[in-house]
């Protein structure tokens, strides 16, 4: 099974799904992860999601550390280091789905330009991944 389709089939309690994206600075794929997260929480599923800022999780800053334990979580990792997954797992997040952007890039044959400007292919990749995640969100919320 491709990692980008990992998802718990059971509907989960709670009206929202938490989105955690890597936001990596080094690679264009990190920027795609970030763009994808914004697409979901601002346009695609704004009422059904909450975006979790990754840096405060390590310091266990509220409300992020509480939200990530309260809601089912979908992770968007920008590279094979899987930092977002590692950080979320460490503090006890209920991870219900994970996306690895490089795998999606390969799947759709789309190459983002650079970290500061992901370009049209990067934008399209973010949209494609957001569409997949929207399906996961609906499934998790039992819609």
């Amino acid at each position, binding site marked *: 099974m491709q990692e980008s389709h990992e998802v718990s089939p059971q509907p989960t309690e709670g009206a929202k799904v938490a989105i955690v994206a890597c936001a990596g*600075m080094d690679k264009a794929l990190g920027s795609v992860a970030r763009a994808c997260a914004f697409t979901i929480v601002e346009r695609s599923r704004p009422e059904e999601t909450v975006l979790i800022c990754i840096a405060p999780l390590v310091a266990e800053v509220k409300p992020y550390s509480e939200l990530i334990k309260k809601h089912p979580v979908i992770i968007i990792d920008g590279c094979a280091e899987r930092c977002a997954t590692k950080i979320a797992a460490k503090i006890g997040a209920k991870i219900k789905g994970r996306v690895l952007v490089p795998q999606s890039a390969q799947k759709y044959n789309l190459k983002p330009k650079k970290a500061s400007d992901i370009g049209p292919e990067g934008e399209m990749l973010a949209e494609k991944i957001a569409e997949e995640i929207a399906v996961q969100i609906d499934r998790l919320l039992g819609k």
Partner: protein
Amino acid sequence: MTLAKDKVGIICCSGEDFPEGTISRVATRLVLEKLRPDETVTLCLPLFLAGGEDERAFARVFPTIAVDGCGKKCAESGTRKFSGKPVATIVVSEIMKKYPKLKAKSRERLDTEEMELAMKVAEEIAEKVDEILCKKVTK
């Protein structure tokens, strides 16, 4: 023998919760790509926090600047926790007070006004880079 050139590591929060986090990210990239490309490197905060030993080792050896979007100062506290106190911390929300006409509105895409703000922040980061490298030379 070739001496390694001094570099300053920039660790920005990249926070997704506020527009200031996006400003921190864009400003950092402006420094890396335009203002001080030869003097700076970026340290990936998520990797740093998740246990990236290369990133942490760099921050133990080389001077770092934390660029935080808001008063929670996650980049600064993360750096301090795993590698030592950054030489300087830039807080976007503090810099914004100097430019009340420039507003940060979007978390996703910066408009012309927000890009101007990002450039102001980038210039402050570049100034700190110069200070740090100059201080090292005169030590």
